[in-house]
């Protein structure tokens, strides 16, 4: 489903965020990206949805090399991917419902689909009674759950999650992990960057560990460290 081949990514500031990274993620696989702050986890996720382009190497997603993909094909690519962002990226002037509906609206889904799917997904993340709130009326963890709901309301092929439990208490965090696991078992490929030792150790999924841009470990049924 995703293939990273000898990817090197250097930022304008002369930081090499990734150095000659290679790995492959199969369909319906669940992968944790771990590593210290600044080791390149978010960069790797951004490469997979063409928010960044590598200097060297190839990134294959759903069978196509997206590095050379023309700009007008990007929307199509992104509709296959659900993104959970480290900083949520919620729209402050839209309610919870509208934020989630927005992801369906902009790709032209009809009204009735929206009216049906959004409440469903809000219930899954436990926000059904906060549908009319605005983001600034939510706690940090609630905002994070909105961003999770938005990412998979579209039932994407691939889910890229950047610290989806960073602002959640252990209880809520475990709920989210059960959810991601369930999504994964329905055939969605999940790649998740995390610092949460406990969660990684509990789940026992494949773990790819980064250190200063280099893949130092790629272990099936791995632990945090």
């Amino acid at each position, binding site marked *: 489903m995703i293939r990273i081949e000898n990817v090197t990514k250097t930022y304008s500031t002369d930081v090499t965020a990734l150095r000659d990274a290679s790995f492959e993620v199969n369909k319906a696989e669940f992968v944790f990206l771990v590593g210290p702050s600044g080791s390149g986890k978010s960069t790797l996720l951004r490469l997979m*949805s063409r928010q960044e382009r590598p200097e060297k190497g190839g990134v294959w997603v759903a069978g196509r090399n997206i590095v050379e993909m023309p700009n007008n094909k990007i*929307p199509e690519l992104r509709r296959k991917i659900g993104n959970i962002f480290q900083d949520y990226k919620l*729209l402050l002037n839209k309610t919870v419902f509208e934020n989630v509906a*927005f992801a369906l609206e*902009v790709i032209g889904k009809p009204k009735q689909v929206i009216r049906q799917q959004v409440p469903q997904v809000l219930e899954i993340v436990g926000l059904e009674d906060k549908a009319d709130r605005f983001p600034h009326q939510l706690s940090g963890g609630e905002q994070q759950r909105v961003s999770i709901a938005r990412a998979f309301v579209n039932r994407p092929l691939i889910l890229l999650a950047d610290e989806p439990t960073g602002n959640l208490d252990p209880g809520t965090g475990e709920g989210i992990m059960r959810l991601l696991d369930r999504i994964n078992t329905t055939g969605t490929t999940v790649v998740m960057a995390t610092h949460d030792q406990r969660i990684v150790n509990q789940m026992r999924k494949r773990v790819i560990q980064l250190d200063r841009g280099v893949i130092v470990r790629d272990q099936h049924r791995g632990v945090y460290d």
Partner: protein
Amino acid sequence: MFSRITYVFREMWASLSRNLTLTVAAVITATVSLFLSGLTLLIQEGFDNQLSAWTKGVRLLVYVDNDATPEQLKVFTDALTQAKAEGTVVKDFNYCDVACSVDVAHKLYAGDPTAIELYNDKTTPSFFRVIPVNQSSATQLNQLAERLHGLPKVNAVVSPDQMITTLSVLKGFVGVRSLIMSIVLLLAAVLLIWNAIRTAMFARRREIEVMKLVGATNWFIRLPFMLEGLVTGLIGGLIGGGALLAVNQDWTDGITTRFPANSGLAAFVATGSTPWSIALAMVALGALVGAIGSATAAGRFLDV
């Protein structure tokens, strides 16, 4: 498809009203600039009509002393025949002898017995009446007048009023300057609409970023903003064009009621469909200005 259209209009409206003051300022500037542009055109039209009204009635009257011999008169006839052959200034001419001239005077002062007494075949000079070519300018007429004045036995040459020259110069002076001003304002309007769009997009850059990240196409993102600019320009054009028509009506009415009947300004109006054409042109120009402003502004922020 229908849901897309409602989306575009809903988003456009939301953006317009969120940026209300900037939109209002942009509309005002567009309005005033378009109004000024239109006014410039209208004033030019007024000048043209007034000038042609004045020029059309123009006759060059060359008064010849009564004691001129037939040979001396022939000098005039020859000069004018030659000028007529050239065809640039003189269209036609005719001679009005003393009897004819007294007749004209008596008709002119029909109500004034003193004047009629005054004009007898002793006191009244005969004259040549020169009808100028329609397109001939005031300068050309003045040159001709001077040339004729140089001939012998000329009593007086009544040339077209200097008012015409004054008016021409005034037209140029006012026209160029109000055109410059309206172009500067039009530029400000483009800039403002550009800016309203840019501000709208800047205010929603997070939204745009998110839209791109969830897979919206660039056109989908761009359309509401472009429409917003178009509508801003269009509203400015409509108000400006309307104001133009109103002021024109006001002025045209004023010409006949407010000013003294003989004020000499009667022709200083744009007539027929001209004001409407100009107003429509302003509406179109407003839409164009809006489209240009918003299209260039919407081009930014959209590199995937």
